[in-house]
């Protein structure tokens, strides 16, 4: 049986139910990571990944071309990233929010699936296509978790999430940089230039620089100063939020701008 978009609803519904059960199980078991929670989430991820893999086979190309397809990956990675953050730092609440974000993206794909035709234009037929897009989307999910920590830190007026945010930004930045630079090398191969200041590239540069500001703020002397106050933490959180908003602009917001029509990154 071929897995097509028509089967997205049952696959997504089963996955979301399992993920919800997993989150509920972590809240029931307060002392340590529940095995039930782990299994529920893992099976949900596998079912969802089977759908993505099946779609890949039925489309005869990686499902990474349209916005709808990138949302598919994002919802998968968001759940995985939320779980990694939970396992590493024991923040139960982050799973709830990552599940909500993943579910919102799944719902968008159900109600507005965009186009899913089989064609893959010549420029996209490159060995760089899959690593470039998946790595980018994974970094988006990691920064999504950092964004949730920043909002929570601002809400609770505490700097205690900065340490976790540092780790997430470090990992996210490694993936984001890999995504951006692999894109540069691919662009040279396909279009003749590493960087052309295309609208998408400008927003990608803005996003990268925003997280770079965060890293420099966190490694500067003032952040190690024992007199550093919540004001420093607040500004760092604000930069995480700015970075995440710019990331949304780079991902799909740029398509709403008039300049998008001339972008070389318009595939959907």
């Amino acid at each position, binding site marked *: 049986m071929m897995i097509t978009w028509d089967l997205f609803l049952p696959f997504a519904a089963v996955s979301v139910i399992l993920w919800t059960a997993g989150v509920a199980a972590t809240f029931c078991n307060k002392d340590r990571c529940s095995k039930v929670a782990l299994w529920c989430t893992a099976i949900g991820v596998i079912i969802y990944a089977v759908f993505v893999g099946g779609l890949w086979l039925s489309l005869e190309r990686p499902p990474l071309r349209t916005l709808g397809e990138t949302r598919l990956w994002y919802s998968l990675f968001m759940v995985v990233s939320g779980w990694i953050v939970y396992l590493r730092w024991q923040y139960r609440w982050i799973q709830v929010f990552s599940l909500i974000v993943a579910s919102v993206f799944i719902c968008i794909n159900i109600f507005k699936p965009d186009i899913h035709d089989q064609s893959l234009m010549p420029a996209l037929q490159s060995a760089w296509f899959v690593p470039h897009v998946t790595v980018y989307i994974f970094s988006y999910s990691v920064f999504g978790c950092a964004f949730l920590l920043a909002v929570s830190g601002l809400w609770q007026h505490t700097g205690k999430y900065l*340490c976790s945010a540092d780790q997430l930004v470090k990992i996210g930045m490694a993936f984001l940089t890999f995504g951006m630079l692999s894109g540069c090398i691919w662009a040279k191969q396909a279009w*003749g230039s590493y960087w052309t*200041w295309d609208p998408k590239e*400008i927003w990608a540069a803005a996003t990268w620089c925003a997280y770079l*500001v965060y890293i420099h703020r966190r490694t500067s002397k003032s952040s190690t100063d024992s007199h550093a106050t919540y004001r420093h933490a607040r500004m760092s959180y604000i930069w995480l939020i700015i970075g995440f908003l710019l990331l949304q602009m780079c991902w799909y917001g740029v398509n709403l701008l008039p300049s998008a029509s001339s972008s070389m990154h318009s595939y959907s």
Partner: protein
Amino acid sequence: MCLWITIYLAIALALQLAFGNIDDRLFTFPVGAALGVGALAILYVAEKEWGKSRWIKDMRSSKMACLLIALSVFACIIGGCMSANSSFQSSIPFVALLVALMVNLTLAILHRIITRHKKTDWIFIATHVGIWLMLFCGLAGSGDNRSLRAVVSANCDTTSAIDANSHTVSLPYTLRLLNFNIETNASNGSPTQYEATILIDNKPVEIAVNNPHSFNMSDDLYLMNFHRQADGIYCVFMIEHQPWKYPMLTGIVLLLIGAVAGGVKRAKPHISERIKDIDNTISTTRV
């Protein structure tokens, strides 16, 4: 520090209003490279001789880096909202901002190397030198890049191409189309892949999208498009002359290695200590 940056950018803005965007042909080799090397030498002397002065300390500080990168974010947001043909990347304030960033970056790298800073690690050097190389090639090398378009068919030899200003440029070789293959999507007829075999000075070469032909260290030939006419297929080729291609690639690879290594490197204990400090200070402030 903020005041000086404001004055610097205000001057750049005034120059922009007076003269418009920078013409990158002004920096054609050897001018761009000479300016770059000259600036590097001046910064080396400045760091070596006056490295402990307040000015130089401020110019290479993390605080300055934060300010300049934050301004770059702001500039990119403005550029991202502008129309695609506004060429904001050639505007004087943006170029001035990148130059200031390069000065900060250069001084930070030189300081680490000259003083054999205790915090110096290869990840810092790889990422910063990588970014430095990319910026240097982008700024100093911008005037040396040239892009030509040539229409090639099987009917006759092509001996000239058109540059960005629609001027005809003679090619030092001849091009002729030998064969053209196209694969289309069965459902909508759109091309999924196309490739051409052309004769370059009577030597056959296969070129496809994502698979350019390299003439030498700086020139590459790309298959960009094709047109069907009554008398056959006409392929559009792009000839890219980028002498800074490999230095730029070196910068990309260095940054890539540094970023990935930085991502997998374990955090130093003092980071968590910092958070405890912050939390302690917050609790003290609240009390």
